[in-house]
């Protein structure tokens, strides 16, 4: 039977068009470092929330194994790396319709001095990485006495 197995409807064509436009805008690199628009709802992809004690930054990493995620604090930077290795091989399976794809996420944040870098913690659960950035008081300005040498 030569009937297309899937009916990709007009709505999808529109999505693909949007995706192409975003690709062009972002230089073939989605906002999240993935190739193109992967999720159609960008706002679900990353979230930053604030409480009195801490900031919390989270990113969706569906399909990424915990050992493929790294969070590093170095030289006043928060460095996040994650790699989706692609789907596990499913025996005898033929792809028919694919929206998901392998991707990498790469983020470097300069930590402000209101973040307690020592207290940063990270958790990975149900495909979501959450980094907790505890706040600290901004260090008070320190007056440095100028020594006059005569």
């Amino acid at each position, binding site marked *: 039977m030569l*009937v*297309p*197995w*899937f*009916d*990709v*409807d007009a*709505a*999808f064509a529109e*999505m693909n068009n949007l995706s192409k436009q975003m690709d062009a805008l972002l230089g073939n690199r989605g906002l999240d470092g993935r190739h193109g628009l*992967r*999720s*159609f*709802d960008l706002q*679900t992809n990353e*979230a930053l929330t604030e409480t009195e004690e801490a900031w919390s930054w989270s990113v*969706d*990493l*569906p*399909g*990424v*194994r*915990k050992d493929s995620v790294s969070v590093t604090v170095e030289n006043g930077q928060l460095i996040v790396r994650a790699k989706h290795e692609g*789907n596990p091989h*499913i*025996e*005898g*399976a*033929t*792809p*028919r*319709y*694919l*929206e*998901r794809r392998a991707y990498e996420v790469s983020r470097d944040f300069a930590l402000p001095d209101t973040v307690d870098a020592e207290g940063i913690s990270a958790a990975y*659960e*149900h*495909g*979501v990485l959450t980094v907790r950035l505890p706040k600290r008081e901004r260090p008070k300005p320190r007056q440095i006495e100028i020594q006059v040498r005569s």
Partner: protein
Amino acid sequence: MNTETQQNLQVRSDNEDKATTRPQSAQNVRWFRPAVDVLERAEGLVLLFDLPGVEPKQIEVQTEESRLTVKGVRTDGERGWHRVLTMPPAYNLAGIEAKAENGVLVLTVPKHEAARPRRIEVR
């Protein structure tokens, strides 16, 4: 669109049927459409849904006639994933098996026995 095509699996946008299929129960939840992969095996289909942020026990998989609905509210209680697929008649929606790992839901949908490829021995 001819009738034959319509009988094939349609992966549709929620925009089409927003009014009828959007979950009504959970209040103040913003719903998003998860990405899906469809793979075919001799025994049936494998469907992979990206549902990050949803606890596996909170994922709901419902079938009604040829419609397969997947939804789940994220742990933040504010956002959820929701998608409806229309399956071809060859698949046995009552036989679906589900597992979830790292924010990905994997559904295996068996074919009805009669629809499976069958090798007939020539004597």
